[in-house]
Protein backbone atom coordinates (compact mmCIF):
# COMPACT_ATOMS: atom_id res chain seq x y z
CA UNK A 1 0.00 0.00 0.00
CA UNK A 2 1.46 3.35 -0.97
CA UNK A 3 1.65 5.97 1.72
CA UNK A 4 0.06 8.41 -0.71
CA UNK A 5 -2.96 6.32 -1.75
CA UNK A 6 -6.31 7.08 -0.21
CA UNK A 7 -7.54 4.54 2.33
CA UNK A 8 -10.88 2.94 2.94
CA UNK A 9 -12.59 3.63 6.31
CA UNK A 10 -11.21 0.52 8.04
CA UNK A 11 -7.68 1.30 6.86
CA UNK A 12 -8.10 4.91 7.96
CA UNK A 13 -9.05 3.86 11.48
CA UNK A 14 -6.10 1.47 11.65
CA UNK A 15 -3.69 4.16 10.36
CA UNK A 16 -5.12 6.62 12.85
CA UNK A 17 -4.62 4.23 15.78
CA UNK A 18 -1.02 3.66 14.69
CA UNK A 19 -0.30 7.40 14.35
CA UNK A 20 -1.78 8.10 17.76
CA UNK A 21 0.22 5.30 19.37
CA UNK A 22 3.40 6.71 17.81
CA UNK A 23 2.57 10.23 18.94
CA UNK A 24 1.70 9.00 22.41
CA UNK A 25 5.33 7.95 22.86
CA UNK A 26 6.58 11.41 21.82
CA UNK A 27 4.04 13.10 24.10
CA UNK A 28 5.06 10.90 27.02
CA UNK A 29 8.71 11.82 26.53
CA UNK A 30 7.95 15.57 26.37
CA UNK A 31 5.68 15.36 29.38
CA UNK A 32 8.24 13.47 31.51
CA UNK A 33 11.03 15.87 30.52
CA UNK A 34 9.03 18.94 31.46
CA UNK A 35 7.80 17.16 34.59
CA UNK A 36 11.31 16.49 35.94
CA UNK A 37 12.34 19.99 35.04
CA UNK A 38 9.32 21.39 36.94
CA UNK A 39 10.13 19.30 40.01
CA UNK A 40 13.72 20.58 40.13
CA UNK A 41 12.72 24.22 39.56
CA UNK A 42 9.97 24.04 42.21
CA UNK A 43 12.35 22.61 44.83
CA UNK A 44 15.02 25.21 44.04
CA UNK A 45 12.57 28.11 44.36
CA UNK A 46 11.17 26.61 47.58
CA UNK A 47 14.71 26.27 48.94
CA UNK A 48 15.43 29.92 48.10
CA UNK A 49 12.26 30.97 49.96
CA UNK A 50 13.47 28.90 52.92
CA UNK A 51 16.96 30.45 52.83
CA UNK A 52 15.47 33.93 52.53
CA UNK A 53 13.98 33.53 56.01
CA UNK A 54 17.41 32.57 57.38
CA UNK A 55 19.07 35.58 55.78
CA UNK A 56 16.69 38.53 56.25
CA UNK A 57 18.03 41.88 54.99
CA UNK A 58 17.93 43.36 58.51
CA UNK A 59 20.63 40.92 59.64
CA UNK A 60 22.37 39.57 56.53
CA UNK A 61 22.11 42.05 53.69
CA UNK A 62 24.84 40.32 51.66
CA UNK A 63 23.16 36.91 52.04
CA UNK A 64 19.80 38.41 51.16
CA UNK A 65 21.19 39.97 47.98
CA UNK A 66 22.84 36.68 46.99
CA UNK A 67 19.56 34.76 47.46
CA UNK A 68 17.56 37.32 45.47
CA UNK A 69 20.23 37.13 42.77
CA UNK A 70 19.99 33.33 42.71
CA UNK A 71 16.21 33.64 42.46
CA UNK A 72 16.52 35.90 39.40
CA UNK A 73 19.00 33.44 37.86
CA UNK A 74 16.63 30.53 38.61
CA UNK A 75 13.70 32.31 36.95
CA UNK A 76 15.77 33.23 33.89
CA UNK A 77 17.17 29.70 33.65
CA UNK A 78 13.66 28.28 34.05
CA UNK A 79 12.33 30.41 31.20
CA UNK A 80 15.21 29.51 28.90
CA UNK A 81 15.06 25.81 29.79
CA UNK A 82 11.31 25.70 29.18
CA UNK A 83 11.79 27.11 25.69
CA UNK A 84 14.51 24.55 24.99
CA UNK A 85 12.62 21.59 26.47
CA UNK A 86 9.27 22.48 24.97
CA UNK A 87 8.56 19.96 22.25
CA UNK A 88 5.32 18.03 22.35
CA UNK A 89 3.00 18.29 25.28
CA UNK A 90 -0.39 16.71 25.90
CA UNK A 91 -3.44 18.95 25.75
CA UNK A 92 -3.65 21.16 28.85
CA UNK A 93 -0.03 20.55 29.94
CA UNK A 94 1.33 24.01 29.18
CA UNK A 95 -1.66 25.64 30.88
CA UNK A 96 -1.11 23.52 34.01
CA UNK A 97 2.60 24.34 33.91
CA UNK A 98 1.88 28.08 33.62
CA UNK A 99 -0.53 27.93 36.58
CA UNK A 100 1.90 25.94 38.72
CA UNK A 101 4.85 28.16 37.86
CA UNK A 102 2.84 31.37 38.46
CA UNK A 103 1.50 30.18 41.84
CA UNK A 104 4.98 29.16 42.98
CA UNK A 105 6.28 32.63 42.03
CA UNK A 106 3.34 34.28 43.85
CA UNK A 107 3.96 32.18 46.98
CA UNK A 108 7.64 33.04 46.82
CA UNK A 109 6.71 36.75 46.68
CA UNK A 110 4.31 36.21 49.59
CA UNK A 111 7.13 34.64 51.62
CA UNK A 112 8.98 37.96 51.30
CA UNK A 113 6.16 39.55 53.30
CA UNK A 114 7.05 37.23 56.20
CA UNK A 115 10.61 38.54 56.48
CA UNK A 116 9.82 41.20 59.15
CA UNK A 117 8.46 38.37 61.35
CA UNK A 118 12.00 36.91 61.57
CA UNK A 119 10.69 33.36 61.75
CA UNK A 120 13.08 30.88 63.30
CA UNK A 121 11.03 27.72 63.77
CA UNK A 122 12.38 24.98 61.52
CA UNK A 123 8.88 23.57 61.16
CA UNK A 124 7.55 26.86 59.82
CA UNK A 125 10.56 27.35 57.58
CA UNK A 126 10.04 23.83 56.24
CA UNK A 127 6.40 24.64 55.69
CA UNK A 128 7.38 27.72 53.67
CA UNK A 129 9.61 25.53 51.50
CA UNK A 130 6.79 23.05 50.93
CA UNK A 131 4.08 25.66 50.28
CA UNK A 132 6.22 27.64 47.82
CA UNK A 133 7.29 24.48 45.96
CA UNK A 134 3.92 22.75 46.05
CA UNK A 135 2.09 24.19 42.99
CA UNK A 136 4.84 23.54 40.47
CA UNK A 137 5.93 20.36 42.26
CA UNK A 138 2.42 18.88 41.95
CA UNK A 139 2.27 19.83 38.27
CA UNK A 140 5.69 18.25 37.71
CA UNK A 141 4.81 15.00 39.50
CA UNK A 142 1.59 14.81 37.48
CA UNK A 143 3.55 15.16 34.23
CA UNK A 144 6.15 12.56 35.20
CA UNK A 145 3.48 10.03 36.22
CA UNK A 146 1.45 10.53 33.04
Amino acid at each position, binding site marked *: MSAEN*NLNPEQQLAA*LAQAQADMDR*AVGYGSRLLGWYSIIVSLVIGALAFLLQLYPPQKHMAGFIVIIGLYVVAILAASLAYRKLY*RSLPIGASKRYTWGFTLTIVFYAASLALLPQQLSSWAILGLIWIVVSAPLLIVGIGMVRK
Partner: protein
Amino acid sequence: MTTHARNRLNDDFSNPVRLSIMGALNMVEEADFKSLKEALGISDSVLSRHLSALEEKGHVKIRKGFVGKRPRTWAKLSPEGRSAFTGHVQALKEVTGLA
Protein backbone atom coordinates in the same frame (compact mmCIF):
# COMPACT_ATOMS: atom_id res chain seq x y z
CA MET B 1 -33.69 12.60 6.79
CA THR B 2 -30.21 12.20 8.34
CA THR B 3 -27.09 12.23 6.20
CA HIS B 4 -25.38 8.87 5.82
CA ALA B 5 -22.06 8.72 7.66
CA ARG B 6 -20.08 8.12 4.43
CA ASN B 7 -21.27 11.52 3.19
CA ARG B 8 -19.80 13.11 6.27
CA LEU B 9 -16.32 11.71 5.59
CA ASN B 10 -13.93 14.57 4.90
CA ASP B 11 -11.84 14.08 1.74
CA ASP B 12 -9.14 16.33 3.19
CA PHE B 13 -8.22 13.50 5.57
CA SER B 14 -8.46 10.47 3.30
CA ASN B 15 -4.76 10.65 2.47
CA PRO B 16 -2.94 8.44 5.01
CA VAL B 17 -0.20 10.97 5.76
CA ARG B 18 -2.67 13.79 6.36
CA LEU B 19 -4.85 11.50 8.46
CA SER B 20 -1.81 10.57 10.57
CA ILE B 21 -0.77 14.19 10.98
CA MET B 22 -4.28 15.17 12.07
CA GLY B 23 -4.50 12.20 14.44
CA ALA B 24 -1.13 13.02 15.99
CA LEU B 25 -1.88 16.74 16.35
CA ASN B 26 -5.28 15.94 17.84
CA MET B 27 -3.46 14.54 20.89
CA VAL B 28 -1.35 17.60 21.62
CA GLU B 29 -1.63 21.33 22.07
CA GLU B 30 1.20 21.85 19.66
CA ALA B 31 3.99 19.73 18.22
CA ASP B 32 7.29 20.76 16.79
CA PHE B 33 8.26 19.64 13.31
CA LYS B 34 10.98 17.26 14.48
CA SER B 35 8.77 15.48 17.03
CA LEU B 36 6.02 15.08 14.47
CA LYS B 37 8.41 13.81 11.82
CA GLU B 38 9.98 11.27 14.19
CA ALA B 39 6.64 10.13 15.61
CA LEU B 40 5.14 9.54 12.17
CA GLY B 41 8.31 8.20 10.52
CA ILE B 42 8.12 10.43 7.47
CA SER B 43 10.63 12.65 5.71
CA ASP B 44 10.97 16.41 6.09
CA SER B 45 9.69 17.06 2.58
CA VAL B 46 6.62 14.82 2.92
CA LEU B 47 5.69 16.32 6.28
CA SER B 48 6.26 19.84 5.02
CA ARG B 49 4.13 19.28 1.91
CA HIS B 50 1.19 17.78 3.78
CA LEU B 51 1.33 20.29 6.62
CA SER B 52 1.20 23.10 4.07
CA ALA B 53 -1.80 21.48 2.38
CA LEU B 54 -3.60 21.13 5.71
CA GLU B 55 -2.73 24.72 6.58
CA GLU B 56 -4.17 25.92 3.26
CA LYS B 57 -7.42 24.11 4.07
CA GLY B 58 -7.50 25.84 7.47
CA HIS B 59 -7.13 22.63 9.49
CA VAL B 60 -3.68 23.36 10.86
CA LYS B 61 -1.88 26.44 12.13
CA ILE B 62 1.87 26.67 11.65
CA ARG B 63 4.13 28.84 13.76
CA LYS B 64 7.77 29.53 13.06
CA GLY B 65 10.23 30.73 15.66
CA PHE B 66 13.68 30.32 17.10
CA VAL B 67 15.03 28.32 20.02
CA GLY B 68 18.35 30.02 20.65
CA LYS B 69 19.68 30.62 17.17
CA ARG B 70 18.02 27.57 15.65
CA PRO B 71 14.83 27.98 13.62
CA ARG B 72 11.99 25.75 14.72
CA THR B 73 8.49 25.11 13.36
CA TRP B 74 5.47 24.17 15.43
CA ALA B 75 2.09 22.95 14.21
CA LYS B 76 -1.26 22.67 15.91
CA LEU B 77 -4.84 22.01 14.93
CA SER B 78 -7.05 25.05 14.38
CA PRO B 79 -10.40 24.93 16.23
CA GLU B 80 -12.08 24.31 12.84
CA GLY B 81 -9.58 21.57 12.04
CA ARG B 82 -10.14 19.84 15.37
CA SER B 83 -13.89 20.00 14.86
CA ALA B 84 -13.67 18.74 11.26
CA PHE B 85 -11.37 15.90 12.29
CA THR B 86 -13.58 14.86 15.20
CA GLY B 87 -16.51 14.73 12.78
CA HIS B 88 -14.48 12.69 10.31
CA VAL B 89 -13.43 10.14 12.94
CA GLN B 90 -17.00 9.85 14.17
CA ALA B 91 -18.18 9.24 10.60
CA LEU B 92 -15.44 6.62 10.11
CA LYS B 93 -16.62 4.78 13.22
CA GLU B 94 -20.22 4.87 12.05
CA VAL B 95 -19.31 3.61 8.58
CA THR B 96 -17.30 0.74 10.02
CA GLY B 97 -19.92 -0.02 12.65
CA LEU B 98 -17.70 0.93 15.59
CA ALA B 99 -19.83 3.85 16.76
